């Protein structure tokens, strides 16, 4: 524990000793040192100059004193002298300033002490001089006056005495002007004056002697003083002090200047370092700025918080996405964005991970400032410094659009894109749920299967765009009728389903169904068209008509079939009979299996006749099916089912056989019948053994294949041309005649027509329907023309009135077939007519 604490402290200190800080600190220290040094140098220079000036002053004063001492018995105002003496003392004291002396070596102490001592001596002499000089001011003058007055008064003084007097005075003057006189001379003079004084005994002589004596001693004294004074050489001391000072100062200053220079250099180096560091920091700053810019302008929403999860930074993207400005966000917890759509565990789990110092990645459902929901994927990283969490960094991406796309895809998976209604998938899913609800709540559920009547016609005639618009309009009308709680689905091209929950009785359903039919019957105005369509509805109810989804759907479908079959534009409830009686595919398929065995299949015949002579030329065998439950079922309803169920071969052969047998009977009655034609499916033709199978029958029944024609629909040929090509040729070789049925409606290719072994072309009914008096009937003409050029016989199908017949005669068609002449009849009925 202690170790880690120490380590932490050490790391703290090391971090504190940040190099930049160190350099800065050093720089400051050295700068201070430099300044201190420079100030010190300045002070030293100043002190030195002060001392120099003091020494100069002392020199000047010394000279002044020298001048003073050279005064000869002049009056001197000693106030000035006193002042100068005091000055000299104060200068010396200044020189002896301890603070200054400290800076200099001990070399100066001796000379300064000497200076002091010598000066005191000099001062002494000056004082003496002052005293004695004052004494003799005017003395000499006075002595001369005295001498003059004595000579004047005592005129009878003999020359000798005068001479003595004069000599004494002269000698006095000599001494005064510093001419050396020896002791004996002076003594002699003195003695002479004493004798003169004694001789004359006047106070003048007394005074003269006294004055002479005192003046003499004063002069001698002054000479002595001067000598003593001259011995004291202060100037020399001053000069030596000056020199010593200079030398001291010089070395001192030099070393200090050197130090200053080196400090300056170091300071400059440190300064340069600082600049470099600063430049580096500028670079870092620039980098950070770039980062900051990147973060600021990133499309990702970036949030930084402190360790207490309070926001310290958000970028622009955040502001845009959340609607909160930076100011509003700062200091808040990111949970201000929390929507209630995520469970508590989600957040507690996230917090646990983050508290541990681990990264967390996940998706948020958040709300922005205005309360709008948005989705974010987020990656939150704890910011760790020195093993401690300092804060968190969250980088988030707004995935709302993506989620919306997902939702769209999800939507489209379960909805029809045109009408936006739920689709068949949805139906299966939702109806199961509804069934469960109905089960629990003990309510009823009705399933409507609806088919638009006549939609295909409109779609084909006016195009898919109109068809789409029609569907949308229809959807709108449905919705209008239905409640919000009713579910409507689009399950097919023009097929819809509704699931209605109800607890009332059947009348309610009747009401709805009627309403729906009525509303759909109203004309729909799509662009410039006014369209009329019908609605066929099949209704299956839970629980009466079924308890599971599949059953209900099937039964509703069956009921709708019935409605369609029975005339369309109506609604039928399911009843159990319907399952069996309605011509649903299933029903047909199931019945067909046993149809043949149950003799439900039978053949009717329709004659083809020469349009000009009106004589029957051939008959066509047509298959019919009469089922106990389903009733009469038309071939166009069950043939393709037979083909798909694989029953067509069997059925086809049955027809063939039956037709052959009946032909034989017919031929006996009507000799003009040369040909019997039987419809053949391309499936049959694909069978390679087909020709042989036919031949077996013809052999068995003893019929010549020449009298048998096989009718194949043009479109079917063209679709399967490659597969049946060989069979056709085989048949032809065997003698069978080949007829192309419904010619002109398919993809007739001239080259194929040419290549195929064709005998007769049957012009499609639609062209015959189009025959009008004022029409060119160009197509029929063309077909007749082609036939003739290829040597085919033409038969016009579906002649229903005389006009058509006459025109066809005019168009040079060979034969005709249709209700006008004769409807398809059973063999017995036909025999009767003939």
């Amino acid at each position, binding site marked *: 524990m202690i170790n880690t604490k120490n380590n932490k402290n050490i790391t703290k200190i090391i971090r504190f000793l940040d190099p930049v800080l160190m350099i800065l600190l050093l720089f400051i220290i050295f700068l201070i040192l430099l300044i201190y040094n420079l100030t010190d140098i300045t002070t030293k220079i100043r002190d030195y100059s002060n001392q120099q000036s003091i020494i100069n002053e002392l020199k000047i004063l010394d000279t002044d004193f020298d001048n003073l001492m050279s005064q000869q018995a002049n009056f001197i105002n*000693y*106030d000035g002298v006193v*002042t100068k003496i005091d*000055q000299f003392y104060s200068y010396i004291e200044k020189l002896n300033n301890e603070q200054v002396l400290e800076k200099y070596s001990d070399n100066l102490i001796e000379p300064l002490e000497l200076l002091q001592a010598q000066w005191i001596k000099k001062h002494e002499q000056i*004082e003496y001089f002052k005293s004695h000089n*004052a*004494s003799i001011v*005017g003395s000499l003058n*006075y002595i001369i006056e005295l001498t003059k007055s004595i000579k004047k008064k005592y005129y009878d003084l003999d020359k000798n005495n005068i001479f003595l007097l004069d000599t004494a005075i002269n000698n006095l003057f000599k001494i005064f002007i510093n001419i050396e006189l020896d002791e004996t001379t002076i003594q002699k003079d003195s003695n002479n004056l004493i004798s003169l004084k004694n001789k004359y005994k006047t106070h003048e002589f007394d*005074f003269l002697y006294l004055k002479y004596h005192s003046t003499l001693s004063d002069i001698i004294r002054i000479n002595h003083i001067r000598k003593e004074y001259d011995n004291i050489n202060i100037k020399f001391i001053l000069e030596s002090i000056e020199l010593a000072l200079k030398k001291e100062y010089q070395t001192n200053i030099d070393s200090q200047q050197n130090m200053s220079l080196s400090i300056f250099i170091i300071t400059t180096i440190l300064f340069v370092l600082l600049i470099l560091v600063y430049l580096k920091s500028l670079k870092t700053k620039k980098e950070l700025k770039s980062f900051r810019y990147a973060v600021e302008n990133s499309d990702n929403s970036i949030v930084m918080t402190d360790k207490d999860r309070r926001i310290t930074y958000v970028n622009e993207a955040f502001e845009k996405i959340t609607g909160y400005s930076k100011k509003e966000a700062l200091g808040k917890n990111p949970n201000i964005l929390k929507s209630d759509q995520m469970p508590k565990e989600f957040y507690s789990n996230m917090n646990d991970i983050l508290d541990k110092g681990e990264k967390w990645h996940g998706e948020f459902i958040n709300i922005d400032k205005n309360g709008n929901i948005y989705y974010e994927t987020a990656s939150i990283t704890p910011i760790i410094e020195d093993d401690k969490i300092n804060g968190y960094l969250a980088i988030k991406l707004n995935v709302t659009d993506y989620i919306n796309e997902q939702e769209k895809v999800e939507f489209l998976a379960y909805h029809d894109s045109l009408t936006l209604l739920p689709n068949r998938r949805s139906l299966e899913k939702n109806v199961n749920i509804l069934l469960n609800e109905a089960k629990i709540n003990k309510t009823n559920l009705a399933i409507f299967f609806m088919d638009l009547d006549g939609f295909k016609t409109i779609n084909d005639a006016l195009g898919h765009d109109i068809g789409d618009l029609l569907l949308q309009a229809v959807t709108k009308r449905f919705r209008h009728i239905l409640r919000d709680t009713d579910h409507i689905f689009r399950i097919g091209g023009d097929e819809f389903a509704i699931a209605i929950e109800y607890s009332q009785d059947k009348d309610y359903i009747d009401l709805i169904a009627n309403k729906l039919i009525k509303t759909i019957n109203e004309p729909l105005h799509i662009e410039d068209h006014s369209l009329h369509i019908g609605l066929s509805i099949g209704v299956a109810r839970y629980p009466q008509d079924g308890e599971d989804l599949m059953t209900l759907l099937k039964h509703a479908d069956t009921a709708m079939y019935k409605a369609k079959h029975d005339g369309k534009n109506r609604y039928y409830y399911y009843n159990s009979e319907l399952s069996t009686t309605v011509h649903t595919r299933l029903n047909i398929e199931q019945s067909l299996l046993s149809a043949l065995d149950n003799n439900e299949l039978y053949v009717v015949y329709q004659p083809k006749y020469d349009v000009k002579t009106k004589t029957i030329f051939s008959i066509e065998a047509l298959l019919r099916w009469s089922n106990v439950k389903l009733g009469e079922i038309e071939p166009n309803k069950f043939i393709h089912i037979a083909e798909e169920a694989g029953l067509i071969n069997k059925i086809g052969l049955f027809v063939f056989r039956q037709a052959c047998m009946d032909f034989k009977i017919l031929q006996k009655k009507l000799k003009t019948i040369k040909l019997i034609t039987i419809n053949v499916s391309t499936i049959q033709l694909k069978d390679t053994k087909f020709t042989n199978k036919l031949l077996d029958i013809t052999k068995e029944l003893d019929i010549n294949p020449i009298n048998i024609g096989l009718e194949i629909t043009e479109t079917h040929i063209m679709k399967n041309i490659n597969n049946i090509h060989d069979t056709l040729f085989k048949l032809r070789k065997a003698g069978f005649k080949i007829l192309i049925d419904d010619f002109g409606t398919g993809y007739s290719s001239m080259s194929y027509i040419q290549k195929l072994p064709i005998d007769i072309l049957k012009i499609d009914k639609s062209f015959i329907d189009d025959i009008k008096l004022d029409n060119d009937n160009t197509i029929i003409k063309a077909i007749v023309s082609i036939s003739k050029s290829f040597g085919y016989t033409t038969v016009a199908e579906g002649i229903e009135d005389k006009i058509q017949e006459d025109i066809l005669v005019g168009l040079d068609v060979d034969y005709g077939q249709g209700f006008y002449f004769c409807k398809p009849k059973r063999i017995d009925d036909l025999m009767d007519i003939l």
Partner: protein
Amino acid sequence: MKHLIYIFLIFSLSYSEPISPIPLKITTDNKKVALGSKLFFDTILSKDNTISCATCHRMDMGGADGLPMSFGINGQIGNINTPTVFNSTFNFVQFWDGRAKNLQEQAIGPIENPVEMGHNIDNIVEILKSTEYHKLFKAIYKDGVTKENITDAIAEFEKSLITPNSPFDNFLRGDNNAITQNQKDGYALFKSHGCISCHHGINIGGNLYAKFGVIGEVKSDSMGRFSVTKNPYDKYFFKVPTLRNIELTSPYLHNGQIEKLEDVVKFMSHFQLGKTLTENEVLKITDFLKSLTGELPKI
């Protein structure tokens, strides 16, 4: 002494006379002057509490006491005439023998002189500390009552005791009617006879030592400067006293042996100059000397 230089310079420029007038005002520290004044008049400085500075240096007697020798504690008589305290700041040294170089040094003398105040300065420091002086000193001096501070205060007070505006000073300043013709004549004689050679300057004396009795022998108990330097040359050399307010400071000379001003003029001219002045000359010079009395300090 700095102010002396200043004065000397100024007045030597404007006046070529050997005597300079006293400045009308002198810069002092008022607080120190007040404290010093209190001390000056306080007998607490003497051993038996009878003598203060003012006992001998009386404000009403020209700064002296009118006695040949002064009395000390226990009725003792001193050995030298009390010099005036007035204008004493202008003297180049203090005491007749110049043993004190300034007023502050001088102040100790009488305090510790057994025949004057007979005290011990260290004891006085202790005594004063226990009085209100402690507070008064503390108010001015950081270190309170000390030897230096006591003498400093006294000296500052003494410095303030100048007597400007004597008639002669005013005459020097340019007022020709400040003194009488007699006095002007007296001044001329003072100069011509050579009295001026010793009695000159701002204090009309007080700036050199001179031998007492140049011409002939004069009796003197005190040896003067000799007692300080022990130099035989210095025997009977005394500081030349100031002549300002001289008419107030009788008796005269260091031994106080001459009472009348006229008499001391005669004495001086005989023994210092070796001259005999006429009666007229003496009177004129005396008259001149009387013009040297200035405005006394108001205490």
